[in-house]
């Protein structure tokens, strides 16, 4: 997002809406009695919240044309944008939401997601690469129907397209399946890598209802020091194939 300097009246109403704190009120260099709002382009993730808030009475905020690789910021920050690779808006993956129809996750393994930058911090894509490469080294195969997979230069190693590394996004999800024998190793990687990233990441485990409390996956997660929240998502199983 950008601010049209000539239009900004320096009211500062847009500042608090920015999820990553990229908007600041500064002295106007040309007129030091006035203040102007400025967007730090390096920090801005192009989520569009400041524009949609409609608090700028002088309509100084605008979305410029974004080119590659900067356009990746918007794709992973503004949920109004549908990911062209998957046809899904938001972070671009159906994950477990439609599983009763697609059969994406099957009994005998677990689905996992590592959402880099969540909650409320944002992440540089090099941080995502760091985690993805560590997972790939242990044989993790990334979900093909997830837009992050299309950011990799080499999907087998998790290496990113180099021009993307410094782009900042609100969050992006690394999604994969783990076999029972892989789970401890994967959780250990995530634990070890915690100290190497500047951002945060949230971890999900997709499983079956009988797993709750008594299942092996949660037992392993708890043993490895991962908290299991008392709340989560439940697929009701009401979907079916309808396309002819």
């Amino acid at each position, binding site marked *: 997002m950008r601010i049209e300097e000539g239009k900004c009246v320096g009211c500062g109403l847009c500042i*608090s809406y920015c*999820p990553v704190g990229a908007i600041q009120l500064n002295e106007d260099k040309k007129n030091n009695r006035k203040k102007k709002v400025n967007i730090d382009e390096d920090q801005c993730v192009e*989520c569009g*919240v400041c524009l949609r*808030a409609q608090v700028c009475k002088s309509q100084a905020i605008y979305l410029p044309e974004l080119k590659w690789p900067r356009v990746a910021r918007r794709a992973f920050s503004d*949920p*109004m944008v*549908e990911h062209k690779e998957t*046809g*899904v808006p*938001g*972070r671009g993956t*159906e*994950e*477990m*939401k*439609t599983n009763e*129809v*697609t059969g994406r996750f099957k009994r005998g393994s677990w689905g996992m997601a590592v*959402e880099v930058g*969540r*909650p*409320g911090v944002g992440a540089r894509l090099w941080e995502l690469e760091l985690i993805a490469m560590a997972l790939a080294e242990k044989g993790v195969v990334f979900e093909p129907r997830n837009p992050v997979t299309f950011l990799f230069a080499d999907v087998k190693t998790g290496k990113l397209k180099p021009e993307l590394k410094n782009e900042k996004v*609100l*969050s992006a999800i690394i999604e994969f399946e783990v076999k029972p024998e892989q789970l401890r190793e994967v959780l250990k990687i*995530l634990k070890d*890598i*915690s100290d190497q*990233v*500047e*951002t*945060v990441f*949230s*971890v*999900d*485990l*997709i*499983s*079956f*209802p009988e*797993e*709750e409390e008594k299942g092996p996956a949660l037992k392993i*997660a708890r043993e490895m020091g991962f*908290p*299991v*929240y*008392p*709340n*989560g*998502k*439940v*697929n*009701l*199983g*009401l*979907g*079916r*194939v*309808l396309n*002819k």
Partner: protein
Amino acid sequence: MTHTLHRTGDIESLKEDFTMLTHVARGYNDHGAGERLKQMAEIARKYTNLNYGDCKVGNQFMMSPEEIANKHTVGWQVVFKDKESLIACMKELKEKNIGISVVVSGLFDEVFDCCKKAGINPPLVEFALGIHGNKNKIWPKEILDFVTMCGHGLVSGHLVKKMIEDITNKKISIKEAAIELAKPCLCGAFNPYRAAKLLEKLVTQ
């Protein structure tokens, strides 16, 4: 898109926080899904009016629910504050059997109880295994409970602080502040009823 997972909060507060979403399965039931999604949204909205939205379109604080309902292509979200309404909605969705996937987020004990009462056997669940990495960067708990109600990260912690300040300075009511916080969350997954209760607690402390 795991946007209704990872909501933080005390058990008592989470007991009044259920999100329901629908989502088409691309390649399986997406052809002409708009009308089906609209029918399902009309059912859900009979049981709750707290929030309703579609991240490709917007939420009910940005436009009328009727306008949102006519634009669905992938899915929608609503929020509930009580189990009775949720159970009634789940029962009707099951009975109408429209064929698009439905996911409910909330405390597992409560959601499974609702499923049982609605005669639903859920096939799959998603667990949240916590926040990792540089946790010095996350908002303190009292702010995080608001921020995590928008899984896409669009509700700014700075805005939460500003709303608390504005309520304290009597510039805005608690209800208005809760709605202002719900606006950036395009999907309609943010629970303004719960937000108002959390704000009230914070400003009276």
